[in-house]
């Protein structure tokens, strides 16, 4: 691995679905190792579609995606999926095994871990999200917030270079949201967070990019971006009621 390579490097990524509906129109994005970046944008902006390009689930029509210097191609896709941990919006989509432990082990087994090393990695991942005591429960017996944290463990177990979270705080009550935030803050891993939750982006991500209609329209420090009312309004983003922001902080 090239140690100087950025964690994520997208160049001119364009994509249209087979029905001809074009969603991405040439996205350039560079995320350095250790960065925490929020990807903001209204519904239908192409955020989730872009996320599926980061681990080779969708193949771009044009442009290139590199993860830690490795280009996403058919040959590298196995390694890329280990390097990019993608956490989906609905935990019921992500947690499909009979028990929490089995679910966390799923990805680790797929990358070849077995025996004591596998058990240790599963325990470490569950510990990192504070869910070790629930290891043997079925996922559907957990609360929504707990399921979301298990989802994060299911990708942490593969020791990813980059964590990509699609709407991590949606549907969470305030306490679960805070617990999730504490978990995410404790992780020393490059993260890209797709979110509408602007206060959350401000709290956790020093840098934000704004995607709309398949184009990256802004890339600034989060506070500066959120304080630009005109830009925000133009792209259907609004701070919650009573939330005032100045560039100075």
């Amino acid at each position, binding site marked *: 691995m090239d140690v100087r390579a950025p964690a994520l490097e997208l160049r001119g990524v364009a994509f249209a679905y087979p029905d001809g509906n074009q969603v991405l129109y040439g996205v350039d994005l560079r995320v350095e190792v250790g960065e925490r970046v929020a990807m903001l944008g209204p519904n239908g902006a192409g955020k989730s579609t872009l996320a599926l390009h980061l681990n080779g689930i969708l193949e771009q029509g044009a442009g290139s995606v590199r993860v830690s210097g490795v280009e996403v191609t058919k040959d590298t896709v196995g390694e890329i999926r280990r390097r990019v941990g993608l956490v989906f919006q609905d935990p019921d989509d992500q947690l*499909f095994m009979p028990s929490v432990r089995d679910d966390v082990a*799923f990805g680790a087994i797929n990358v070849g871990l077995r025996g004591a090393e596998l058990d240790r990695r599963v325990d470490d991942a569950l510990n990192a999200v504070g869910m070790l005591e629930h290891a043997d429960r079925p996922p559907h017996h957990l609360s929504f917030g707990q399921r979301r944290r298990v989802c994060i463990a299911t990708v942490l177990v593969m020791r990813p270079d980059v964590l990509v979270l699609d709407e991590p705080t949606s549907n969470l009550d305030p306490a679960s949201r805070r617990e999730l935030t504490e978990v995410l803050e404790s992780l020393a891993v490059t993260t890209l967070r797709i979110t509408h939750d602007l206060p959350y982006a401000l709290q956790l991500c020093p840098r934000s990019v704004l995607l709309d209609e398949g184009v990256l329209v802004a890339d600034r420090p989060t506070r500066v971006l959120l304080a630009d009312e005109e830009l925000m309004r133009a792209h259907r983003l609004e701070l919650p009621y009573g939330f005032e922001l100045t560039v100075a902080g």
Partner: protein
Amino acid sequence: MHRLPAHVKIVAALTFTIVVVATPREQIWAFVAYAVLAATAIIAAGLRPAHIVKHLAIELPFVFFALLLPFVSRGPEISIVGIGLSQTGMWDAWNILAKATLGTTVSLVLASTTSGNELLRGLERLGAPALFVQIMSFMLRYVEVTSRELDRMRVAQASRGLRGNGVRRWRVLSHVVGSLFIRTYERGERVHLAMLSRGYRGSMPAQSAASVPVSTWAYAFALPALAAACAATAWTTPWT
């Protein structure tokens, strides 16, 4: 019994059932012996007899069919309180009732001491096709998710004033089934994406399983072995 490996229990229950089915129906004493063995299994498993009796209701359609046989079968008849009953029909009814009840009872002991997922793992160890096991385990995992969706849809309909059981309700139900199908299908696609994202390449990861000591097999097979001994005696003893 709860701690026995699932595949051992499956083989033991299946063996017991085959032995029961293979026993000549005229050897009534053998069925009494099987009933004692089945009761021993219930006690050893720490199950309440009432629990088993309640769940035996699943057998009712067969019981109904069996009870009809003495009335509809042909052959020599005997008269009981003035009603002519076919002797062959009575033996047939006894055959179905005794064997079905014993088979259902051991299946219930198996189901009450083994979770659905353990049963699937057991079947997998016994060589059931991997695809079948995958489909069944997804069904177990998502049946609750789907039924929650169905409940939410019902509540939403009731909240908007849907009442009664008329034709209109049936029309609405057809829409519910249609949209539930589409939602489930779409969820299937999303789950597949989530699986691909974690390195899925078409087969589920095989979990290494510890081998089972001979003593465990011996414990699980104590009752089927005794049953087999009864069956052997039943076959070698003349019956009329």
